[in-house]
Structure formats: structure tokens, C-alpha cells
């Protein structure tokens, strides 16, 4: 089975800190995605990447950046964390040619205090 692993399940950070959320997949998927999940808003796409060193803005990229230096790893970066970035963050991956085989990580619940 494909696994998408998010490095932290729970994270507490201070306002203004630089925060890295890491996501690793083990099945050679080209496409990777970062979503945030908030009550009443569902999952919203922050950034995605079609392949190594490629990135595209999603629906809510403000305040975030990403890095994809290796195919298996997709990092979400909060340059200066703010309290409104307190949320659940979910990573997903899929093969480029299969628009139905999304695999999700377990999520990272980030609290910014």
C-alpha cells in the first residue's frame, strides 16, 4: 500500500515562528498536495506540486510556501506563523496519470499560540 507520512501528528508553535510541515510518500507519485481543514470550510488546497521542483498555488496560498527538492518529499512552510493558521493540515499524493488514486496522510494538527 502507498503510504503518505506526515512527520508530526500534533504541533504547537509560537506566533512569528517559521514552521515546517513535512510529508513523505513511498510510491513514486509525481503529484503531491497540501490542504488545510477547518470546520465548516472543508478541505482547501494550499499548494500542489506536479513534480520535483515544480509548484502551483492552490486556493489559499497566502502565508505559505512549499518546497519539493525530492520526488518523495513535499514540505509546507509557514514563514511567520500566525494564530489564524491554527488548523489541521493534510498532505496527499497521486500518480500524475491517475486522477482517482489520491492517498492522504493522517494529518498534522497545528496550534499557533
Amino acid at each position, binding site marked *: 500500500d502507498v503510504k503518505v507520512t506526515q512527520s508530526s501528528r500534533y504541533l504547537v508553535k509560537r506566533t512569528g515562528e517559521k514552521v515546517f510541515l513535512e510529508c513523505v510518500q513511498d510510491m513514486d507519485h509525481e503529484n503531491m498536495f497540501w490542504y488545510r481543514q477547518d470546520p*465548516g470550510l*472543508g478541505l482547501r488546497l494550499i499548494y500542489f506540486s506536479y513534480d520535483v521542483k515544480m509548484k502551483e498555488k492552490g486556493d489559499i496560498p497566502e502565508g505559505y510556501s512549499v518546497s519539493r527538492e525530492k520526488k518523495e518529499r513535499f514540505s509546507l512552510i509557514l514563514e511567520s506563523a500566525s494564530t489564524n493558521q491554527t488548523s489541521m493540515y493534510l498532505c496527499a499524493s497521486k500518480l*500524475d496519470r491517475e486522477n*482517482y488514486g489520491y492517498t492522504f496522510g493522517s494529518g498534522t494538527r497545528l496550534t499557533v499560540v
Partner: protein
Amino acid sequence: AQSVTQLDSQVPVFEEAPVELRCNYSSSVSVYLFWYVQYPNQGLQLLLKYLSGSTLVKGINGFEAEFNKSQTSFHLRKPSVHISDTAEYFCAVSGAETSGSRLTFGEGTQLTVNP
């Protein structure tokens, strides 16, 4: 681009009653449709998906959904719910033939099954 609307944010039902969670989508291209479930403090789990063929799709835990192209809907149904079905349910859409397509989610429906 695609979008999804889940018509009910909360659905309370009694145990053993039938339930329908409604989902409408919009898209200019052919689509794949999905229902995911999230139990409290857990990750997303795929319930079922429609790719092509029969418009009635059966999933896990006794759920099924019907793809209606003319009404652009993909409603989720279960004839008799259990307490353990209490969870949040998400409808999602992806472009079928576009390379590198993205998955777009609805706002979610909280299903609460009461004894």
C-alpha cells in the same frame, strides 16, 4: 475548474433510519466523484468513488451513491444507519482526463446518529 457544494452542514438522524447526504458539483469537463469519511480524531477514509460506468456506486460500510449527470449530483445514501456512522462526510471532485488534476472538496456534512 471544478466546485462542490454539500447542501447540508449537519444531518441528525436516529439509529436504523435511512439517510441521504446531498452533494452537487459543477465542472466544464468530465469528472471523477468521491465520498470520504472522517471519524473523530482520525484521517480521511475513502468511502466510494465514481469513475465511469454504472451510475450507482457501492462503497464500504453499506453506503452507496448515485451519479446523476443531468442534475450534477452525487448524493450519498445508507438505508439504515448505526451509531458508529457518526462522522464527517466530504464529497469531492477531480477532473477525469486532465493530467495533474486536483481534488476539490465540499464543506463537509456532519452526520450524527442518535440512539
